[in-house]
């Protein structure tokens, strides 16, 4: 019965913006994000401030 939980698959997400959450988060579960459209602009500003070379410079020793 491996596939019984799986609905028919659609291709990747259309609108990548978060939609309103379902009812599962009511009660003792996690809290839903604030409703309304996300302020994409402030996040985009933050992303534009990221130095494009940051990852190139970033070096670590191997950890566990």
């Amino acid at each position, binding site marked *: 019965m*491996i596939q*019984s939980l*799986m609905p028919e698959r*659609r291709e*990747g*997400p*259309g609108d990548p913006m978060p939609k309103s959450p379902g009812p599962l988060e009511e009660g003792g579960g996690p809290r839903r994000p604030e409703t309304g459209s996300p302020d994409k602009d402030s996040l*985009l500003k933050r992303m534009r401030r990221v130095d494009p070379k940051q990852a190139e410079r970033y070096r670590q020793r*191997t*950890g566990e």
Partner: protein
Amino acid sequence: MRLFGIETEYGITRDDIPEMDPVVESMELVRAHLASSFERRWDYAGEDPHEDARGFRVSGLQQDREEDEFARRDAHRPFSFHDMKSDLVLPNGARFYNDHTHPEYSTPECRTLRDLVAHDRAGERIVHRAAQRRNRLLGGAYLRLYKNNTDFHGHSYGCHDNYLVPRSISFPALTVGLLPFLVSRQVIAGAGKVGIEAQESGWVPGAYQLSQRADFMETELGVDTMHNRPILNTRDEPHADRRKYRRLHLIIGDANMCEYATALKIGTTRLVLDLIERGALPPLEVEQPVVAIKQVSRDSEMKTVIRLKDGRRVSALELQAHYCEVAHRELAGSDEESDWLLSEWAETLHALSDDRSRLVGKLDWVTKLWLIETFMREERIGWDDPWLASLDLEYHNVNPEQGLYLGLEAEGKAWRLTTEDEIEEALRSGPQDTRGGLRGLCVQRFSEQIQSIQWERIQFRGGLRSQHLNMGDLFDTQEIRRCADIFQQARSPADALAAWDHGKEIET
């Protein structure tokens, strides 16, 4: 009874100098947490990474030669091994130290997902606050800390999830039950990664992966953790009574920013362990787990087919659905947390196959991909642009003023399991229903009298009588609370230990 905890090694870098000394910076970062000078307390007696759960002891680890080389290079430094490690036990029962040049925060043992997520988040705050103090000394905001698992040059560092399980569950049973689950767990627990890399062999742009760690998995089973990393680590270091318990030490996981992903990662693994203990899992074996884990990670459309040894071919989502279905059948109604998990697990798998945009703010790989794709459209750049790796890195920055995930969270777009009050509480004290809370209480009340401390034992100074609190088999909630009450009210550790030992004598 199931206890769990997370160890997170953080990435660390400085903006103001071309080449940072990772030994010094990691050590200084940990020490920046302290209000007073560092005092060596951690007891390493319980640590032996050479013991293998398959029933033997290895003579050496693949990392030993490299570690010896680092030790030789680091020998000229004016501080000892213990100074470098700077091992701290915090008033919340957590361990905070320098592990292989990475600041590592290990949560106290937790019994509920809510506590675990709160303590994982508390770790982020502790690391960030230490960085702020260190930056004040440096004279600028130069230090950056990342809760991630790669440097995009082939160096990985871990986020390990740990579970206390009865020794009566054989290791072969754990192996059979867990391998297919772990190969596919990344669809819910992957932190997402731009590009492809391999152990110390550079980085190739142009792809998006579900997982940060999949590239570094090189074998199915093994005791190593720094080279030739295994999907299922066989280190036998229970940090508890060895006759009764083992510690499942998973090194395959990514460091999650999303609280929801952390809760599902740990929670679903806990459910699978319950199924293994009940003998409820039908046998299911992946033909080539190491190949499969990489293929699954490199397919964000999740169409990759995994070949099973019985000839079946399934997707990672179908594997997860199989586990979810058996768990639902066997464990529904067990307790409130299990029911929440079963519901969210099924809902998440449904959303992944149906409309994954509903998982933005809940699963890291989905959230990071959404941010990056939005940015790519706005900036008209392609997957080969190196800027994307930097965005990936900054997604994990623990500075709320810089981190991309924390920016999303500040806008209320991330799913929260915890409240800020719960995180503040986790900064102050450990879970009251585990020995982690008891360890923290001893640090709060009797710090000056602690001679040495580790996961299962606290040695107190002074006196001729036995002065240690043994917690190797202290997992019963009522016993823990009774012991904590004694330590809360006693005037000294000696009084507390006497009362605790007297109580146990009466019981027997």
